[in-house]
C-alpha cells in the first residue's frame, strides 16, 4: 500500500513538473499585451523565406545558397558589383564609381572605394578588406568556389581607398569577384581568427543597410532571421525598424501565410492556383518574373544513341516545348515562353535566340526528325521505333523523384517522343543520387533538372570538354553531358579570357550557336518567380531581382503602421 502510494506520488509529481515546464513556455501577463500589439502593428516587416541558409560564412562550401544571399548577405555586407533587376552589373554602394580595367599582361583592376563607406563600428572599409577576402578564398580550405581568385597575384593596399587587383592571366569574369555569392568582410575584426568560427552562426558587424538584431542572436535557427537598421550605413538608411525572415519550407503553407497576412511578403515557388489564391485578397499585389533559373533536358553524349549528333538534333526537333510550357508553367503563372538559349534573355548583352536561329521552333517538327534520322542511317521498325544495326532508339530519363512538375514533363515528353519514333522510359532517383552520383558519374542518358544562369555569360564550366568529370579527376566537373566539341571549347574558352565587352559578347553568341548545333542539351523554359506583398502595408520600389532577390532594396521600402 505504502509502496503504491509512493509510486503514485512520484507519478503525480512528474506529471505536475511536466505541465509546469510546458506552461512556462507560454508566459502570461498583461505586460506582454503591448508587445503583442507591437509585433503585429507594423513595426516589423514579416517576410516568408522558403529556405534557411546553411551557414553565414559566405565563402564556405556549405554556402552558395540563393536564399542565404536574399535573406541576409545582400542586406548586411557590401559587394564590389551588384546586379540590377535588368541583369546588368553595376558598382556596389561600397565603390565610389566604376572600377578601372587595365587590359594586357598583367590584367589590373582598380576599385575606387567610397570614402563614406564604413563598417558598423565606424571603421572605414578599405583595400585591406579586399585583400583579406582574396587571401581567405584563394588559400583557404573548404571554399565554395575559388575560380578567379586563384588568378589574382596581388591586391595592392597602399592606398586604403583604392584596391588594386593584379591578375596572373586574363580573367574576363572579373566583375563577379568580390561579389556574386561572396561579400566583403571587416578584416580589422577577423584578421588572425577563424573566419568560419567567427561567421558561420551569424555576425554582429555590418557593411550594409541592415544588421542582425543582436548579432548572432538575430538568427534563430530553424525559425527566423531578424534584421534591424545599421545606423552607420552611409547610403539610404531603412525607415522600417525591423525585418524578420520567417522560414516556411512548405509552399502551400507559405501561400496561405501571405494570403492571411501572417506574413506581409513572400517569394513562393509557383504552383497551380497560386495566383488565383492571391487574387482573392485585395490587399495583395504580385509580380510574375522569369529569372535566371531554367529547366532543360540534358543529354549524355557519351551514351548510345545520344553519341550521334543527328539523334540529338532529332530529339530536339521531336520536342514540343510549347506544349510542356502550356501544361507546366502556364497553369501556375498564366504565361511562359520557350527558352531558346542557355544564356538568359534577362542578360541582353550576351543573349541570342540561338536555337530559334538554328531552326528549332517552340513546337515539334516531325519532318525534320525523319530527315535527320534517315540521314544518319536509321529506319523505323514495325513498332514505329527507330532502329539502326539492330539497336533501337531507346532512352531513359531521370529527374528528381517526387517533383510533380518534372514528372509531368517526363510523361509529356515520353508521349511526344513516342509519336516521333523514340522509346523513352522513366526512372527517377532521389535528388541526392541524381546530383551526387548519376550526374557526375554519367550514369544516365537524359536528365531533367534546372541550372542557374549568371550575369556573366561563361558556360565553359558546363559545356567545355576540360570540365568532364571522370574517374581520373575524382568525378569533379560540371560537364555532365560529356559534351566534347572544338567549336564549343573555343568559343566558351574565349568568353572566359576575353576582356573586351564587345568581343566577349561576340564569342558568347558564337558559343550559343555552337551549342544549338552540337545539341547536347535542350533548353525548355525559364522558371518563373512570384513576388507577392501586401500593398496596404508595404510601399516603395518593389520589384523582382532574380539575382539578388526581391528584397534587395528593402532599405527603400516603407511600412504602414
Amino acid at each position: 500500500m505504502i509502496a503504491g502510494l509512493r509510486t503514485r506520488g512520484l507519478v503525480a509529481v512528474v506529471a505536475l513538473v511536466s505541465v509546469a515546464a510546458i506552461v512556462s513556455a507560454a508566459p502570461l501577463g498583461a505586460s506582454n499585451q503591448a508587445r503583442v500589439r507591437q509585433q503585429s502593428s507594423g513595426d516589423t516587416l514579416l517576410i516568408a523565406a522558403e529556405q534557411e541558409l546553411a551557414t553565414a560564412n559566405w565563402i564556405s562550401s556549405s554556402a552558395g545558397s540563393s536564399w542565404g544571399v536574399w535573406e541576409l548577405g545582400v542586406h548586411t555586407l557590401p559587394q564590389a558589383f551588384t546586379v540590377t533587376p535588368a541583369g546588368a552589373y553595376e558598382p556596389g554602394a561600397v565603390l565610389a564609381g566604376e572600377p578601372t580595367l587595365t587590359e594586357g599582361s598583367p590584367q589590373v583592376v582598380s576599385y575606387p572605394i567610397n570614402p563614406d563607406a564604413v563598417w558598423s563600428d565606424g571603421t572605414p572599409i578599405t583595400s585591406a578588406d579586399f585583400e583579406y577576402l582574396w587571401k581567405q578564398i584563394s588559400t583557404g580550405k573548404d571554399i565554395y568556389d575559388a575560380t578567379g581568385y586563384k588568378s589574382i597575384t596581388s591586391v595592392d593596399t597602399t592606398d586604403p581607398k583604392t584596391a588594386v587587383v593584379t591578375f596572373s592571366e586574363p580573367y574576363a569574369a572579373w566583375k563577379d569577384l568580390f561579389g556574386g555569392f561572396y561579400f566583403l568582410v571587416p578584416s580589422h575584426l577577423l584578421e588572425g581568427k577563424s573566419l568560419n568560427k567567427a561567421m558561420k552562426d551569424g555576425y554582429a558587424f555590418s557593411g550594409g543597410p541592415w544588421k542582425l538584431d543582436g548579432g548572432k542572436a538575430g538568427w534563430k535557427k530553424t525559425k527566423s532571421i531578424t534584421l534591424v537598421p545599421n545606423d552607420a550605413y552611409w547610403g539610404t538608411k531603412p525607415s522600417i525598424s525591423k525585418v524578420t525572415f520567417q522560414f516556411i519550407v512548405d509552399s502551400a503553407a507559405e501561400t496561405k501565410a501571405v494570403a492571411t497576412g501572417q506574413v506581409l511578403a513572400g517569394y513562393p515557388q509557383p504552383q497551380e492556383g497560386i495566383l488565383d489564391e492571391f487574387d482573392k485578397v485585395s490587399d495583395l499585389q504580385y509580380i510574375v518574373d522569369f529569372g535566371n533559373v531554367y529547366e532543360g533536358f540534358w543529354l549524355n553524349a557519351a551514351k548510345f544513341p545520344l553519341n550521334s549528333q543527328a539523334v540529338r538534333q532529332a530529339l530536339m526537333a521531336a520536342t514540343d516545348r510549347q506544349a510542356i510550357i502550356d501544361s507546366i508553367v502556364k497553369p501556375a503563372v498564366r504565361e511562359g515562353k520557350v527558352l531558346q538559349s542557355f544564356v538568359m534573355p534577362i542578360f541582353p548583352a550576351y543573349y541570342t535566340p540561338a536555337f530559334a536561329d538554328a531552326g528549332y521552333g517552340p513546337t515539334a517538327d516531325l519532318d525534320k526528325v525523319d530527315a535527320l534520322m534517315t540521314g544518319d542511317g536509321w529506319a523505323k521498325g514495325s513498332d514505329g521505333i527507330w532502329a539502326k544495326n539492330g539497336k533501337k532508339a531507346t532512352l531513359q530519363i531521370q529527374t528528381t523523384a517526387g517533383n510533380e512538375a518534372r514528372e509531368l514533363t517526363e510523361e509529356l515528353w515520353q508521349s511526344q517522343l513516342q509519336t516521333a519514333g523514340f522509346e523513352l522510359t522513366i526512372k527517377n532517383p532521389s535528388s541526392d543520387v541524381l546530383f551526387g552520383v548519376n550526374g557526375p558519374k554519367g550514369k544516365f542518358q537524359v536528365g531533367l533538372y534546372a541550372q542557374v544562369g549568371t550575369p556573366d555569360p561563361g558556360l565553359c564550366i558546363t559545356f567545355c570538354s576540360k570540365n568532364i568529370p571522370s574517374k581520373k579527376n575524382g568525378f569533379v566537373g560540371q560537364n555532365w553531358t560529356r559534351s566534347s566539341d572544338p567549336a564549343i571549347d573555343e568559343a566558351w574558352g574565349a568568353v572566359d579570357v576575353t576582356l573586351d565587352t564587345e568581343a566577349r559578347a561576340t564569342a558568347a553568341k558564337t558559343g550559343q550557336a555552337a551549342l544549338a548545333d552540337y545539341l547536347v542539351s535542350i533548353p525548355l523554359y525559364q522558371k518563373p518567380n512570384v513576388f507577392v506583398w501586401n500593398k496596404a502595408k508595404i510601399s516603395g520600389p518593389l520589384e523582382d531581382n532574380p539575382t539578388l532577390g526581391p528584397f534587395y532594396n528593402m532599405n527603400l521600402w516603407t511600412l504602414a503602421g
Partner: protein
Amino acid sequence: MLKYVLRRALYSIPVLILASMLIFVLVREFGTDPARARCGVSRDKQCIPRVEKELGLDQALPVQYVDYMTEFVQGHWGDSQRTGQSVDDSIRRALWDTTQLAFWAVLLSGGIAVAIGVYSASKPYSPGDYAFTGLAFAGLALPTFWLGLIMIQYFTYELQRWTGSADVIFRSIPFAEGPQNATQYFQELALPVFVLSVQLIAGWSRYQRSSMLEELNSDYIRTARAKGLPRRRVIWKHGLRNSLSALVTVMAIDVGALFGGLIITERVFSRPGMGTLLLSALQNGDTNILLPWMLVTGMFIIVFNLIADVMYGVLDPRVRVA
C-alpha cells in the same frame, strides 16, 4: 519494482546498439554521400576528397562506426555535416518544439478518448455509440496532411474572411518571434494539436470502449450493481479504473513514437520539430544528425515502453512485477 526497471533499462542498451549499427550502415551505404552533399555546389575540385578525409569517410565502415559511437557516448555529437551547426543544439531545439505539440495533443486526446470510450461502453449500440464509432473510423481514415490543409483553409483563411478580422484567429504558421503570451501560444498550437489529436482520439477511444465493455460485463461489476451502488460510481470508480490499464499501455507506446513521428503535421504547419529535422537530414545525407536523432527517438520509445509497464503495475496491483 526497482530491480525490474533497472533490468529493463539494461536490456534496452543492446537494442539501441544494434539499431544504431543498422541505421549507420544503411545511411552510409545507401544514403547520400555526405561529402557530395556538402560539396555539391562547390567548384573546388579538392572539396570532396578533403571533406571525405575530414569526416573520416575514407575509413572502413566498422572503423567509422566505432569512431562515431566513441564520440557520441562522451556527449560529443559533433556538428552537422551539411551546415557545421552543433548537432545537440539542433536536436534540443527540435525536441522542445515536438514535445510541446505532443504534450498538449496527448493531454487533450487522453481526456477525450477516455470520456468517449466510457460513454460508448456504458451505452453500447446506442445512437451516440454509433456516432462516435463512425467518427472514430473517419478519424483513423483521414490522411493527416489533408486534414491539416483543410483546417488551415477553413479555420485560418475562411474564418478570417468571415469575421473580417485583420489578424487570423488560428495560425497556420508559428509566430516569428515565438508566442508572447498564453493567447498567442494557443493561437499557434490550436490547429496542429487538433490535427494530431484526431487520430489519437480515434484510436484510443476504440481501445477504451473495448476494454471498458469487457470490465462492465465482469462479475464484480454485476455484484456491485446488485448491491445497489449508484451506476455512475460503478462505471467511473470501478469499471474505469480497471479498464485503463490496456489504454495506458497503448498510450505510452504511442506517445513514445510521437517524438519521431510528427513529420507531416510539422511540415503542414511549418513547425521546426523532430520530423522537420529528420527530413532535412535525410535530404542532405547528414548522418551526424540522423544517428543521434535515431538514438534519441529510440530512447523515448524504450523509456515510454518502460513507463507503460510500470503504469500497468500501478493501475493493477495484481500484475505488479517483482
